[in-house]
């Protein structure tokens, strides 16, 4: 089998490549060039910096596997960055890393497997996939604390058939010690947290540069419609946000809602953040067979799953949930098994 390994330059994908090679597969490493700045400069933060690509190249050299940098800058710009901007402009809070998985890695790259005469696409995600002879299923990674099945919850049979996540079978300390034992230069590399195209600066300054129109001043009101002040543009706000609201009203206030049509930011008290459910968009079921009923729902990358019921395109929580932002992803689980995922279109009070 020939495996195309998406190497980000981190320890997880380094070990993923090593595991596949040691299992006797023919391995080809690739790094996707996703983003370059206005003058062609490579990102300095996130998962895809120049030094990350260099690390990936060196690890591939250590493993003695062919390695290539593939240009995905236009796909990334159209599929991820523009979406990121338009989501904020529309009052949503996007997750660009999930969008990148969805539109770039597990769509555009996966579709090129044949081009590279490769059978499977391997990534360094902490998640496990299983085949029962008929269907593929997706499960949380062996290391619950590092589990990344949430960001893969949009994968269906089509992708799972051709994707492999060898690192999901390992705990993070196991990954690091394997890398260390093999002398891989990424063994002790810290994890990246930033969004690659935003870098270490605030995402708002990125938006201000890329979508100045997103910053239309508008009113800040309380939940009864009383004006509390004004703001520079809804793109600077996220549901649940407490800091940087620029209003002093004694008691702590949070962004409870964003109304893009009127550029209004609605503030409320903590007890007004409660959400009974969400309306779902782009619902995906791992099995491909649809579903409904009781699930455990996880709406943050590292949040705990909470009991909920799916009724049509609605997900109703058993208990009120706080600070849920439209645009974010919700993943559905049955214990450790991923049932599917969806985007949060809007919240239901």
């Amino acid at each position, binding site marked *: 089998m020939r495996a195309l390994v998406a190497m980000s330059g981190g320890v997880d994908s380094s070990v993923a490549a090593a595991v596949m090679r040691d299992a006797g597969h023919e391995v*080809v490493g690739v790094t996707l*060039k996703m983003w370059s700045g206005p003058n062609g400069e*490579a990102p300095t933060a996130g998962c895809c910096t*120049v030094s990350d*690509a260099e690390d990936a*190249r060196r690890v591939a050299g250590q493993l003695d596997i*062919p390695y*290539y*940098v*593939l*240009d995905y800058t236009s796909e990334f710009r159209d599929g991820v960055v523009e979406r990121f901007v338009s989501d904020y402009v529309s009052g949503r809070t996007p997750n660009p890393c999930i969008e990148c998985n969805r539109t770039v890695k597990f769509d555009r790259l996966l579709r*090129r497997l044949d*081009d*590279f*005469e490769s059978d499977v696409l391997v990534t360094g995600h902490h998640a496990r996939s299983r085949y029962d002879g008929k269907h593929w299923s997706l499960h949380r990674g062996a290391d619950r604390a590092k589990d990344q099945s949430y960001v893969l919850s949009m994968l269906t049979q089509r992708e799972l058939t051709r994707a492999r996540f060898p690192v999901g079978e390992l705990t993070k300390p196991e990954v690091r010690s394997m890398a260390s034992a093999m002398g891989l230069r990424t063994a002790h590399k810290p994890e990246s947290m930033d969004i690659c195209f935003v870098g270490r600066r605030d995402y708002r300054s990125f938006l201000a540069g890329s979508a100045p129109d997103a910053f239309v001043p508008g009113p800040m009101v309380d939940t009864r419609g009383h004006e509390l002040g004004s703001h520079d543009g809804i793109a600077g706000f996220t549901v649940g946000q407490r800091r940087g609201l620029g209003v002093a009203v004694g008691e702590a206030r949070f962004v409870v809602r964003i109304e893009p049509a009127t550029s209004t930011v609605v503030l409320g008290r903590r007890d007004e953040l409660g959400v009974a459910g969400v309306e779902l968009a782009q619902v995906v079921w791992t099995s491909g067979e649809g579903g409904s009923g009781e699930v455990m729902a996880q709406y943050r990358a590292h949040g705990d799953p909470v009991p909920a019921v799916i009724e049509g395109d609605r997900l109703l929580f058993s208990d009120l949930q706080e600070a849920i932002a439209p645009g974010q992803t919700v993943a559905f689980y049955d214990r450790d098994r991923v049932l599917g995922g969806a985007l949060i279109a809007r919240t239901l009070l």
Partner: protein
Amino acid sequence: MIYLDHAATTPMRPGVWDAMAPYTDVEFGNSSGIHLVSRRAKNALEEARESIAAAIGAGTLEIVLTSGGTESDNLAIKGAVFNESARRGLVTVATEHEAVLETGDFLRRIGMPVTVVGVDPEGRVDVEDLVSVIDDGTAIVSVMLLNNETGFVQDLARIVEAVKARDPEVLVHTDAVQAFASEPIDVAALGVDLMSLAAHKFGGPKGVGVLYVREGTALEPVQHGGGQELGRRSGTHDVGRAVGMAMAMDLALQDREDFGHRVGQIRGDFEKRLIAGVEGMVVNTPEHGRSPHHLNVRFPGVLNETLLVRMDLAGVAASAGSACQSGASEVSHVLEAMGLTPGQARESVRFSFGWPSTMVEAEEAAEIVTDLVEKLR
């Protein structure tokens, strides 16, 4: 591995390494000292310089040793723009190497007048266009002799003549880095004031090159320091590399005529096989006025990135044009300047042949490429 990327770099010719090796340990001297060890190094260096000068019809004082083509291009252009004359303008061509175009971008950013003229679909610069943008602020005109991506050879002597006729004070530089192996290079015949060469393109070591500077040409150094190279390029000499370059130049010069014939035949055979085997292939390299060793072709419907990966996995090395640092393939500015769309440029591949190329490997490579293109379509 069949290596068809000799325009990127080519192996050292036999004997070159042996000639330069002693200057790394036994004859390790700094050529600028007063003692015997230095004198021996200095003698070897100057002997190399004489040989290099003779190979291009220059005087020894006209040879500035540099670290390679990029440095030579930078020194020529910045040196001319920042010299004592009040002229600060650069005129160049859209198909130049990045070493020239990026230098132009830098100059533009700091407020210098920079004009980039276009080319026709074959890559030929329109001499009248070029001359018409020259004004009394123009310090230097820079035109590449042999294009690194397509192999197109400009009529440089005619360009120089026209520029000088317009304004004899304008300096003319040529990046001749790709040309030495195959083209007659005589600075008097070309008429240029400045010319860049890089040893590793003609069988010498990497990290060394030449900037030919016509006697009397005012050049501000880019690199200031100990005053080596008559103050034009400071820094301790790498005597071994200079010796290696001189020897490779000599070998390339002796081989030049045969190279044109021999390598031209291999390239021609490869091209014929591709044309016969790949339906719809387009040859980007113009039919006339081309080098014997470059071939740029387009495979409609096949992304060059994918093809180059597959070729590598199948043991054939080529490229999409000049190499970028990340290794990702980018849209060729040369092909775009010739009128190809970005999409067409992304279907184009450069094959380049060199002194060690053989007919057998060209035949085998043509078969592999033909087969891969068919599979990828």
